[in-house]
């Protein structure tokens, strides 16, 4: 018999109540149960970071978090970054700096970067940005545009 739970979570400000199996990952809950397919699953063992979302403001790998662990939490996904059609400063910077190609890793990088930038009060140097972004994998861009985009937004926000 399946071990099921009723959980409540808010995704990008939208309240959801849903019945999930205890083993169901947060990534699958978001993608397949709630339709937030912007969060991607690249490795299911916590290395690639494509599934990164913010759980109560903290970046987590949603492939390593169970849906039940998000009960009562605020989740922020890539769909919550833009204001309608208007892209956020970070999204615009990714496009301006050619920080994406296939776009599969992009939601994870955006959420990781958003969490990182929200903790900064000074403009980080390139080496530090590279160390932070090393948490996630990209196979297309050589990371250069992503690093540049994060640095530009840091300067805009901190400057």
């Amino acid at each position, binding site marked *: 018999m399946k071990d099921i739970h009723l959980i409540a979570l808010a995704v990008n400000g939208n309240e959801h109540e849903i019945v999930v199996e205890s083993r169901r990952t947060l990534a699958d809950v978001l993608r397949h149960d709630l339709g937030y397919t912007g969060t991607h699953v690249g490795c299911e063992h916590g290395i*690639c970071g494509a599934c990164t979302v913010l759980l109560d403001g903290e970046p987590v790998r949603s492939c390593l978090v169970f849906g039940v662990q998000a009960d009562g939490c605020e989740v922020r996904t890539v769909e919550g970054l*833009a204001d309608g059609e208007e892209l956020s400063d970070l999204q615009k910077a990714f496009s301006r700096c050619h920080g994406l190609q*296939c776009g599969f890793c992009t*939601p994870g990088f955006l959420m990781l970067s958003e969490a990182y930038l929200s903790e900064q009060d000074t403009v980080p140097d390139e080496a530090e940005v*590279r160390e932070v972004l090393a948490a996630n994998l990209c*196979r297309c861009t*050589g990371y250069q545009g992503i690093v540049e985009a994060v640095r530009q937004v840091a300067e805009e926000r901190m400057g």
Partner: protein
Amino acid sequence: MTSIGERLPRKEDPRLLRGLGRFCDDQDRAGQVWMRVVRSPIAHGRLVEVRKPGSAPGGSVVTARDLPPGLRIPVRLTVQGIDLTEYLQPVLAADEVRYVGEPVAVVLADDPYEAEDIAERVEVDIDELPVTVDTASGTKAAEFELGYGPVESAFAQAAHVVTVEFDVGRHSAVPLEPRALLADVDPATGALRIFGMTKVPVFNRDVLAGMLGVDENLIHVHAMDTGGGFGVRGEFYPEDFLVPWLARKLRRPVKWVEDRAEHLVAANHSRQQRHVASAAFDENGTLLGLKDDVLHDNGAYARTHGIIVPELTLAMLPGPYRVPAFHGRIQVMLTNKTPCGTYRAPGRFEGTSVREQLFDVAADRMGIDRVELRRRNLLTADELPHTRAMSTLGTDVVLDSGDYAGLLDKAMVEADRLGYRSQLESLRERGHSAGLGVAVFLEKSGLGPQETADVVVGTSGEVRVHSGGTSLGQGIETVLAQVTADALAVDPAVVTVVNGDTVLQPFGGGSWASRSTVVGGSAVHKAALAVRERAIQLASRMLEVSEDDLEVAAGTIRVKGAPGMSVSYAEVATACRPGSPHLRNDEPAGLSARRRFEVEHMTYPYGVHLALVDVDTGTGHVKVLRYLVAYDVGRAINPTLVEGQLLGGVAQGVGGALLEEFRYDDAGQPQAVTFMDYQLPTAAELPHIDILVAQDAPAPGNPLGVKGAGEGGVTAAGASIAGAIRDALGLTGPVGRLPMTAERVRGLIEEGT
């Protein structure tokens, strides 16, 4: 209004940045059933029995016995007339398994977790057979030679003969999105819609139609957004038959999503080769002849690429140099490892690594500067076009245009301007084991034979392009919109590109081999020009002036010198609708054109890579400090996207040069089955990369003058990094193999050769 050459932002970006892209796993169908593949845990053995777990529902486990008999996946490109039929991979193993990861059964369930549960409990009985891991001990599936000129006499009269042995490790593309497929069936007709078959959708549709025994028009393949391709993703694999076949059999949608552990043993591997290469020089360092003897490890079966990687290895080995005589021999060996296919710059990454290492060793032996030896032997602009008495991919090797030495000089000047050599000297003064590697390479692109494109103008003035290209992240939607906008003199914002839909574009060739801008772009260019001509013809009727008095500018067709006398494309499109007074009885309705572009030969871009590395002689760790790519692309439609392709290629090249390798133990068990074992480079392993895009040598063989950009970032990365490590350690011989993991660098330091 020009669009070509502009750094336009990508049309793809807004949807991808908002999480609104549509990747295959982003969609689910009501009533869909999930497929899970059961794979062999043994590298070689006799398949005795596949047992369904007792509690699993009937029909939930499908084995080879349930399939039509004898199904094998055909090769896409036959080369050198070599028949590989007996080495083709079956859809599911029937009697024998030949590698760990080979599909032996599939499981079906309403839920993916449940499918995985059942798959875990399927028992596979295999009587183990001897395992071959060593390439040289494998089964020889093919052997062939390519070359021209009197090689033996060149070597006999040489003042210097230099030989290197060089191994290239087994690595591959490993795109971030695992493979996925959804087949939706019309229960009434059995017609299939397939999502996720992105790369060569028309070819895959045709293969599937043949295997299912149905007309190809019963199958509608929709290319999707795709999380990277780089050669491996989108080829026809066993799952590409199983998912649609099951959908037709069950009359239900069937979905399959690969996990990462599967991907690393199931999708095509590439690159693994052992070379013994020799060069003959006269007393001045002029190359007289080149030889290479290659063992190619193709894994357990011949897959869709057949033996094109071995062929390209030999055909491209002479590179951009003046090679009076050449002889290459390659033996294609089958072993009990994952089968191989192409990966970005197939054959060229391997051959360039070997040839450039050979040049480095030769330069040092002869006491000639490494760059100077290359410059001396590069074909000059005056010597082009240059025909080599060889063919590859069914086309003669005719190097079309270029200034190889000119680009080498530009690259060296740029590196000096950016302080590469001064940084090297300063590091060495401070006691670092630093080195600079320089490699020159020739690429190939624009493989034909053809591409077809439709350009359709709607009555709102929106322009729609139906191309045979596919979007794998390279930005082809934006590039084709720029090409279209340029030909029609409209704003690229009004152009929408639909790629890889087999109903809209049933003759598309797909995106691979750096061909989609060259061949697909040229087809789009021709179709757009045809639409423009047709628009002028209609405008002449509408405005009652001669066609010669009309010009196209800023999205309108207007009378020269008569402000206000104009019609828009939207008005012309409306005038092309049935019932319009401007449309004649014998004319087809609509403002649209389908055109085909056929190429005679490929086009050959070229480039230079420089790597500055710092070797930690204690740990063997190699840090890439600086990296420069100079690349002549003929003509850049969108320079930002060309640079992006090169940047991404370098990162993959650094991975192949230093980190990435599919290793196996003696029992044929893969040692890289997670991202902990198979290490992709992260942002921290890469430096800022300098890119110099040149447009000195437009391609003469296509109307846009373009050469492909997809592979030039990776081609010489192994070569330049191997050269830099050799320089850093002061080796007299070759580095000997890639990847140069820290362990192997420590080995080189201990050997001290």
